[in-house]
């Protein structure tokens, strides 16, 4: 079970994993909250690649994750993006305070870590309150991307992985938010109880932490933990 934002990267990692170990990995994606509900109701998932660190922790408390199996596998990166070429200049703050700005898209901070991060950045700039009436929210970072890509929202905070994935070319203008402006978007992986006795599941987690997978993760626009 893979958080939606990581789906493409996970796909490629799974292929690498299969090439290397001969095991097949079946990937299911979904919003982390949904995956939580399903796992809590006994979904037959063996490995969880969450979009946050709290969900695996919570599952561990509830006894659904093999204790001590979770670890950070990727660090999300945030980018302020516009589909218009000239909109974001050297100073991103200008774009954010532009009076012509109608809508700024972020992911819902309550639902998605990327949203919370975007909020942090805006608060850091001191524009959070001023922008309230212009905020539109996607339920997840993928939808947020759609809001910006369609041009319905002129600006939006999206996952860098969406823009930088191999063979992606969305153009426009962008400002890659430096890591220090928001709490790290740590994405944790965990071995679920259903996968406890499956060597392939354990192997997948090992592969995920390995160098090949890390390279793939980097190529998709994520960071990797030190």
């Amino acid at each position: 079970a893979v958080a939606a934002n990581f789906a493409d990267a996970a796909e490629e990692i799974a292929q690498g994993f299969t090439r290397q170990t001969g095991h097949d990995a079946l990937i299911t994606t979904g919003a982390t909250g949904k995956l939580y509900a399903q796992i809590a109701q006994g979904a037959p998932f063996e490995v969880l690649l969450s979009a946050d660190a709290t969900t695996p922790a919570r599952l561990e408390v509830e006894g659904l994750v093999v204790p001590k199996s979770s670890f950070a596998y990727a660090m999300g990166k945030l980018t302020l993006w516009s589909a218009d070429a000239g909109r974001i200049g050297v100073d991103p703050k200008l774009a954010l305070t532009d009076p012509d700005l109608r809508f700024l898209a972020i992911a819902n901070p309550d639902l998605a870590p990327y949203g919370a991060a975007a909020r942090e950045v805006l608060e850091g700039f001191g524009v959070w309150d001023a922008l309230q009436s212009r905020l539109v929210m996607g339920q997840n970072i993928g939808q947020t991307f759609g809001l910006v890509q369609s041009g319905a929202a002129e600006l939006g905070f999206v996952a860098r992985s969406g823009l930088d994935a191999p063979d992606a070319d969305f153009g426009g203008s962008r400002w890659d938010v430096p890591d220090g402006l928001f709490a790290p978007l740590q994405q944790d992986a965990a071995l679920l109880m259903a996968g406890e006795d499956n060597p392939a599941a354990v192997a997948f987690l090992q592969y995920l932490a390995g160098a090949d997978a890390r390279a793939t993760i980097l190529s998709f626009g994520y960071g990797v933990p030190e």
Partner: protein
Amino acid sequence: MTLPDLSPLWLTLQLAFVTTLVLLAIGTPLAWWLSQTRSRAKPVIEAITALPLVLPPTVLGFYLLIIMSPRSAIGAFWVDVTGSTLTFSFTGLVIASALYSLPFTVQPLQAAFESLGRAPFELAATLRAGPVDRFFSIAAPMAKRGFLTATVLSFAHTVGEFGVVLMVGGNIPGQTKVISIAIYEQVETINYADAHVLSAIMLLFAFAVLLFVYAINRRYPMRLG
């Protein structure tokens, strides 16, 4: 336990109400035309009116977003005329919901109109009722049951639906955040208690409305003779 924020409920009711009205206003003439026409295009149009259903709501919403965004011709035109965008507005929500629920209005109405046969219309015509008059004095009242079905399905579907609305509306609290999105969020953020409360309110409310509608329909039933 405190009551969750209820403003999405009112917004939902407004949206469902306006959407249903818009749907009846658009769907009724369309259904009427379909029921009467001998045009060869009829099956094509019938098929098209059912199409919005087959796309997943968020995907339909995504395409509508593209069509209605200020960067498209339609969206730009709208901005020129009204000064505000179609996306992320109540108007945009209504358009999107109406498009998505259109089949629920058109299909039952068309079926109801077709079941009337020609006899009452011939009769009305001999009594000097022109086409518009015939529609309002004969077709509409005789197809009452079809209107009931169309209204209930369209209204309920608009209340529950959120994929399209989410995409086109942008989930702006007080403006485009409807109750279905609110409940969805509670579930996603694992606030199950609030989700239960909102769901219960919604179900009870909907049940009360529907019960009222059906009880009235039972009091004043209509049969064909």
